[in-house]
């Protein structure tokens, strides 16, 4: 394979990957919520996609092809980590995978991200601060607990409640906008 051909193949791969990488990553995250593990699987998936890119047929669904490889990598990963027992069972993966393909992640469209921001703006100040500490300042849960004078389980509960209320707010807002 000549250098020009490698460059051509790389450019074609990247032109397909860049706009779709996030969708493939989201698919993995739906099946493996833990970020670190999902990042590992993404690495393996991208490597496999690159290795098998010659098998990819132009004009077919690049995301679906990537998800198929990702699903295989997820199951393989779970098999390897089975003894740790902190990943979904294969049965659950089976239940989730089809729906994971049809879900529209918030962070893949401007509209959904704007809706998320609108819903965040409606939160009480203390809840906003919690989100800011966790997601903007990357503060740990025990750090937040110390700052708010809460127990660590209480911080988990508080943030999970915020997530739940944001999810409900987004659902309502998107419904009113006719987006769902």
């Amino acid at each position, binding site marked *: 394979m000549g250098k020009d051909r490698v460059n051509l193949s790389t450019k074609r791969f990247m032109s397909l990957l860049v706009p779709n990488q996030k969708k493939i990553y989201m698919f993995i995250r739906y099946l493996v919520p833990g970020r670190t593990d999902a990042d*590992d699987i993404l690495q393996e998936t991208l*490597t496999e996609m690159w290795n098998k890119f010659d098998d990819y047929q132009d004009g077919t669904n690049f995301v679906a092809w990537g998800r198929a490889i990702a699903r295989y990598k997820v199951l393989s990963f779970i098999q390897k980590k089975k003894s740790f027992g902190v990943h979904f069972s294969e*049965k659950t993966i089976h239940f989730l995978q089809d729906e994971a393909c049809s879900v529209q992640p918030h962070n893949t469209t401007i509209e959904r991200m704007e809706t998320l921001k609108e819903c965040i703006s409606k939160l009480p100040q203390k809840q906003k601060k919690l989100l800011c500490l966790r997601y903007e300042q990357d503060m740990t849960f025990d750090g937040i607990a110390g700052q708010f004078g809460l127990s660590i389980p209480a911080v988990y509960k508080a943030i999970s409640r915020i997530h739940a209320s944001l999810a409900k707010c987004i659902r309502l807002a998107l419904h009113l906008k006719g987006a769902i």
Partner: protein
Amino acid sequence: MNHNESLFAEVSYLILLSVEGKINKEQLEQLDTLLQTSSGARAIYFEVMNVHLGLESLDAVLEHDENDILSSFDTAALEALAEYEKVAPTLESPVSEEVEDLPLRKVKRQEIVYKINKSSIISILATAAAILCIIAFARLVPVYKSDEVATLVDSVAAKWAAAEMPINKGVRFFADGRPLILREGLVKLEFDTHAQVVIESPAEFRILTDDQIELRYGRLYATVPQEAIGFSVNTQTAKIIDLGTEFGVQADIYGDTFLHVVRGRTTLIAGTGSNKISMEVIKGSARKVSGATSTVSNIPLNHHLFARTINSANRFVWRGEVVRFNLADVVGGGNGLGTGQIGKGISLTDGSCVSDFNWADRQGNRDYWPVDASPFVDGVIVPDSDDGILQVSSKGHMFRECPDTNGLYFDEIRNGGLIRMTDSKSSFPMLFNQVEYGTVQRPLLFMHSNACITFDLDAIRSVMPGFDVTAFRSRCVLIEKSDRVRTEKSDVFVLVNGETKFKQVGFDQNGVALDIDIPLTASDHFLTLVATDGGDSIAIDWIGFTEPYVLLQEDR
């Protein structure tokens, strides 16, 4: 909280634990079960995951427009970067102590997300080693574990098998899985998540985590507030996961598990391996899991099997029944729950508690005597009034129908006991329709006219937190005199805040019980019982209030 909201809260919490890598096997199993069995849970799962993913990338979206990234994509530049990485120094693994202080998430964003977007596949592979190093050290970072997870908040007559184990309030418990054996009594533990359990002896249990307890044998009643949804009770053969509820679990040493769901709903998981089954058990239902076969069968719900609340202050143990606060017991110096003495009473002379009595006709002085010896009795007075107005509470409540009596009294207000006569030193039991009252089994508040006693309902409320005072119920009777038919009359009144709620004037009917059922509300502070001479004399005016109960129901 409705079903959907509780499911939202539960799934959201489990997802957060999962995303943060803090989910344990049991919690994952719980999430697994929900996602497999409920399409609603799956829908919520995706919605909440989307919130997570959106929040994780929110600052990136604000700071970097995705179109800018695409437009600036330059493979030549990235290939140059890849060339540099070939000669770049090897990434050294940081020592673990430093990793602990690293803002790990930031590192991951810089190394993984953005470099992958901007670099070529070659650069992705080249950085993989560095990522793996970071991931490896991330796993070496000590996982937070709360050692102290629960507090002993109360106990009644409790004794641990280990004599050195303290039973005082405030003792903290560790999630160390150590077997705890309760030989006698009851204990109430509150987890830091605010889930509460009352454990009744004999019992053996282990605290596994901040939201899990294992019951080897014994009885346990769990009250789980919204913020502690997901709290689990494990037994030898079953696992009960709370979905926002109250439930009781009884486990025996043979492995049988009995689940009684009083409120809300739970998930019951029974069996192991391929024989594992899970089901939802909702309020008003109960299940038995066989220790021998792991099969699950329906059983009748027993509302009163489990001690739900305890209070060491008055040795109160509540099993879900309507609470009957015994006013006769109070008059006997008790706490309303059975600690009073039969025959003991409160003096109309000065409001003191007395066991020895001066049986003789005496003239009342129309003073309202506060009763300091009992927090539940506001005061007593010998009722007599020229103008019909009589003070019946320390707050100045007035009884405006008070008869003009002869102002005499003979006996004290008593918690049952024996009847005494003026003309004889003999005594005889308090009989009504040939049945003896004024005993522990058949309590009776005895009032020989003229007598008046006021109870403080707020004082009762103060010792029964979580309960509402809802009613006063009793039956008013005339104690029998065996040698002749009664002709003497008495007047009986029951007042609330000084207002007449029950009245029987000229009561002289032997063998007749007058039912008294007076609803009480939060604004009712004083309950007064009045017995007067009926306009003739105080002779043989033996008025009894049988089973005089202030009823309390759980405040919901």
